[in-house]
């Protein structure tokens, strides 16, 4: 009896002591990402919010805060404000631009925060504890390899590229490397700014210019939508493949349905932000070592594995 009482008192005391203590130890993970201004960033926002909700529910000791910013300078202000008002145990950041964010993120690192960088690397890789990114070169390379194989190494290809950035350059470079050694010929490469309207117009012009096009590669799915519409309007039948990239849900759905012209897709999934947030949470909750780099592969998505990449509720 006495023992029971003692035990009960002990538990109560422990609980009382643990109460404020655990509150003090509640870990804060701040997530700073670009605001949703096109399909892919909209996906990032969706997945970041989903991860925050799930983790906040699953781990009461971890609080995830998501902040979106419309520009690099707004992002700098946002993380400065976050770190000024509370102690950040970790910062997960998808930087608008590498140059402008490097110094501000370093300042937060110096205060003792765990830094996870997603997608675009900072200028100084020593700042990051964890780096999660997709593989832009593989996006182009794997698509190219698929075309070379399916077209027996020959044919005419037209390419639509996005906005002049590193991401765009890497994808194009991967594609060019992938077709090296084959007789696949790139008829034309032009910018369409990752915009479906411009891709529609550009594809119309390609169709007017080239009488024989065997395949089209748009290095982003927004552009692929415009391309498909232009092909449909032209009534041209010789185009065997029209491929995109990034993993937009509409295109994944096509792959799942076994579309003949768009049978495969390469992911550069916005869900990588979710991967990064979960790994960061694991650092605190799971006491598992997560420091290092994680490069998400860009394997071909085919009918067989498409469901894994399909998020029907995501805007992207």
């Amino acid at each position: 009896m006495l023992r029971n009482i003692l035990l009960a008192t002990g538990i109560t005391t422990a609980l009382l002591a643990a109460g404020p203590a655990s509150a003090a130890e509640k870990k804060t993970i701040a997530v700073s990402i670009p605001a949703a201004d096109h399909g892919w960033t909209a996906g990032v926002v969706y997945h970041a919010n989903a991860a925050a909700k799930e983790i906040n529910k699953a781990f009461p000791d971890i609080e995830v805060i998501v902040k979106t910013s419309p520009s690099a300078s707004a992002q700098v202000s946002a993380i400065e404000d976050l770190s000024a008002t509370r102690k950040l145990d970790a910062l997960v950041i998808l930087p608008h631009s590498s140059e402008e964010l490097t110094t501000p993120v370093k300042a937060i690192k110096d205060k003792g925060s765990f830094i996870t960088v997603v997608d675009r690397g900072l200028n100084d890789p020593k700042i990051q504890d964890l780096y999660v990114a997709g593989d832009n070169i593989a996006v182009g390379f794997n698509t190219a390899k698929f075309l070379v194989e399916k077209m027996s190494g020959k044919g005419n290809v037209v390419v639509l590229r996005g906005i002049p950035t590193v991401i765009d350059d890497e994808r194009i470079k991967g594609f060019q490397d992938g077709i090296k050694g084959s007789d696949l010929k790139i008829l034309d490469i032009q910018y369409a700014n990752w915009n479906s309207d411009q891709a529609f117009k550009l594809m119309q012009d390609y169709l007017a210019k080239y009488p024989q096009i065997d395949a089209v590669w748009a290095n982003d799915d927004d552009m692929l939508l415009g391309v498909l519409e232009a092909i449909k309007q032209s009534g041209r039948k010789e185009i065997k493949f029209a491929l995109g990239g990034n993993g937009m849900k509409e295109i994944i759905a096509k792959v799942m349905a076994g579309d003949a012209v768009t049978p495969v897709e390469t992911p550069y999934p916005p869900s990588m932000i979710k991967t990064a947030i979960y790994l960061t949470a694991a650092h605190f909750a799971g006491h598992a070592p997560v420091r290092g780099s994680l490069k998400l592969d860009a394997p071909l998505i085919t009918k067989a594995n498409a469901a894994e990449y399909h998020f029907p509720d995501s805007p992207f």
Partner: protein
Amino acid sequence: MADVAAAPPRAQHNWSIGWGDAGPFLALAALVAIGFLINPDFLSANNIANVVTRSAFIAIIAIGATFVISSGGLDLSVGSMAAFITGVMILFMNWVAPSVGTAAIPLGMAVALVTGIACGLLNGTIVTVGRIEPFIATLGTMGIFRALITYMTDGGTVAIDRSLRDAYRPVYFGDVLGVPIPILVSLAVALVAAYVLYRTRYGRRCVAVGANEDVARYSGISVTRVRTLAYVIQGTCVAIAAICYVPRLGAATPTTGLLWELQVITAVVIGGTALRGGRGRVWGTVAGAVILEFIANLMVLSDFVSEYLVAAVQGVIIIIAMLIQRMSKR
């Protein structure tokens, strides 16, 4: 001395004014000739039809802008407004489609028109009643419309309901006697606009307000009413463009209509409308919109411009087109 005015010589003025108005058409003709020399495919019926059809949105919006600009205003919000109207229209059609079927399309068009008129009225009221510089006022609404479409789409895409897709498609892709419907729509809009601007009292008042607000006011013209109505016309034109635009890709995204305002203003100015107001040229505006689209088309069809330099060459061509226009005025 009362009979001096009997036989005024008139030759020289007729001549110079005629050529001045022909400027944009000369530039267009020059561009077509150059295009043909660079790539004979340029003049294929298919290519011409495609390009002119594509220019329809900018042309229709720019016709509205011709009113706003010749009345001395400016509207930077047209691109965002187009996206916003597109979004409202698609969401509305998707909402009513389950109950009314394809009747959703005409209903959606009506909603688009009402939305466009409301947006134009908003812009016009802020500018006239609120007495805010058109540049600032419409810069403000530009942000508002853009944010609203981003909000409506969650930053992603809202696509038109599959059941409506095929029924609506002909509005962009269909044709009457071989002429694509968007071309017919923009011709109809231009005809009505030219009539309104050149042959109605409102057109007279619109240009007068733009030429000299004081003269207009002293002549008993309500500057507020005329300006506001110009913005309403602009909103209506944006709505008509949106109606033609929706079936093309069947979706609205936050990047829909991005930077259209600049293309619209460029088309209007290439067409010979004075940016400071007081002079409107509806058919010149249409030519200006076609010129812009031809230039982009030519960049792709020609092989000697590096993809990295396309924008620079486009800029040079636009400036040359303006010079041709300016010189033809001499």
